[in-house]
């Protein structure tokens, strides 16, 4: 398939910003699972990559094919490369998967709200992630591990469909081996020689140790998983006010202009993707939205 290049599609006098993509060069592409891959990118002219906050996303442009919103999954405390984990689900993400080292991607962003990592200092930090939902939470993990002493207990609960679908498995094992972080992993279906937990991720909630009244809980995954996960967190006495979720909607402009991602009175791209659960509680139960 023909793919246009940056020079053809970005006017020479355009300044990269919210509406104009900046060309980034791919330095590595890693296959995480059979349908998910991670791109490492640097700015074409050698400048430091964009600063971002955990939870924010970029619009990635496969030139001549289209744009998709992708969460930033790298370390926010370093600026040597931009890391984005992509799941191949359509034509644009397929085009991104075909890109190789040295190819160019257009990047607009970063957009959206961030996880409340700073606000969680002094409290227990709990992460509940399902599937590719771990990707936008990985920057939180990097940030928290860099300042581990600032937090109380640190718990990660992560679930996926099968062992083959687990993202960042090697890193998860490294984190699990640390004495100062509790990592629980489960899969919905066990295949192969898997000896770990089998069952949905929500069943991990009653098993882990944290102070429910003060913990800050960050939840990301399919919407139905988040709903059931929040039910479990509420049963464990976590106040609604301490729960944060990351929403996914069909985003186009990334900056609240086009309205594609409207969710009730909110734009997921601009007012989110990270929301306090209380902001979204009522909207999550409206079928039309």
């Amino acid at each position, binding site marked *: 398939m023909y793919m246009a290049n940056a020079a053809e599609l970005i006017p020479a006098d355009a300044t990269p910003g919210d509406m104009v993509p900046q060309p980034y060069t791919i330095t590595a592409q890693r296959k995480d699972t059979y*349908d998910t891959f991670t791109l490492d990118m640097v700015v074409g002219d050698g400048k430091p990559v964009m600063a971002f906050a955990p939870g924010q996303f970029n619009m990635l442009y496969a030139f001549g094919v289209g744009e998709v919103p992708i969460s930033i999954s790298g370390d926010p405390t370093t600026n040597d490369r931009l890391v984005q984990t992509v799941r191949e689900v359509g034509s644009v993400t397929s085009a991104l998967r075909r890109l190789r080292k040295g190819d160019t991607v257009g990047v607009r962003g970063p957009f959206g709200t961030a996880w409340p990592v700073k606000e969680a200092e002094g409290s227990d930090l709990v992460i509940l992630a399902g599937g590719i939902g771990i990707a936008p939470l990985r920057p939180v993990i990097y940030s928290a591990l860099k300042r581990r002493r600032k937090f109380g207990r640190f718990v990660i609960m992560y679930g996926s469909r099968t062992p083959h679908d687990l993202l960042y498995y090697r890193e998860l094992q490294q984190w699990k081996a640390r004495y100062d972080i509790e990592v629980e992993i489960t899969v919905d279906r066990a295949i192969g020689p898997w000896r770990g937990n*089998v*069952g*949905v991720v929500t*069943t991990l909630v009653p098993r882990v140790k944290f102070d429910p009244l003060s913990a800050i809980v960050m939840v990301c995954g399919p919407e139905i*998983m988040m709903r059931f996960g929040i039910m479990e967190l509420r049963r464990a006495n976590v106040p609604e006010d301490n729960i944060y979720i990351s929403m996914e909607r069909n985003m186009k402009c990334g900056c609240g202009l086009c309205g594609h991602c409207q969710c009730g009175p909110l734009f997921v791209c601009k007012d989110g993707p990270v929301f306090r659960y209380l902001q979204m509680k009522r909207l999550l139960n409206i079928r039309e939205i």
Partner: protein
Amino acid sequence: MQDLGPYLKEHKFLQGMTDEHIELIVGCASNVKFDPGEYVCREGQEADRFYFIRQGRLALQLMTHDRGAMTIQTVNPGDVLGWSWLIPPYVWHFDCKAVELTRAIALDGTCIRDKCEKDHHLGYEVMKRFAHVMVERLLATRLQLLDVYGKRS
């Protein structure tokens, strides 16, 4: 012989139960241990026990002719294993195998059923708690069936 009363009193499954009822349950309890690979029960066998898991991990499995033993759920410390002892015909519906060294408290199902028949208050307390476990498992199973991580989700 070790008194299992203090452990059972602390167990979340029995929280809120009177000391008198817990004493009745302790009379049906014993300590058990399963080595890795050892079967706790087999599909079709008489279900005459249930277990409070203290340590280790168990795998609930279904044997399929084409894919072998498939683990459908794991049971971990703090969990309760088994309700088949409560509902006729009192047979296990799954295989259950220890994934790692597992210690548990076994409760004699016939003993508990007899005591529940004699003391319906105890029976109600036990049924309430098992109904809760069953609802939790049903919800988890429904979520599992939805395959929420699929591409269409």
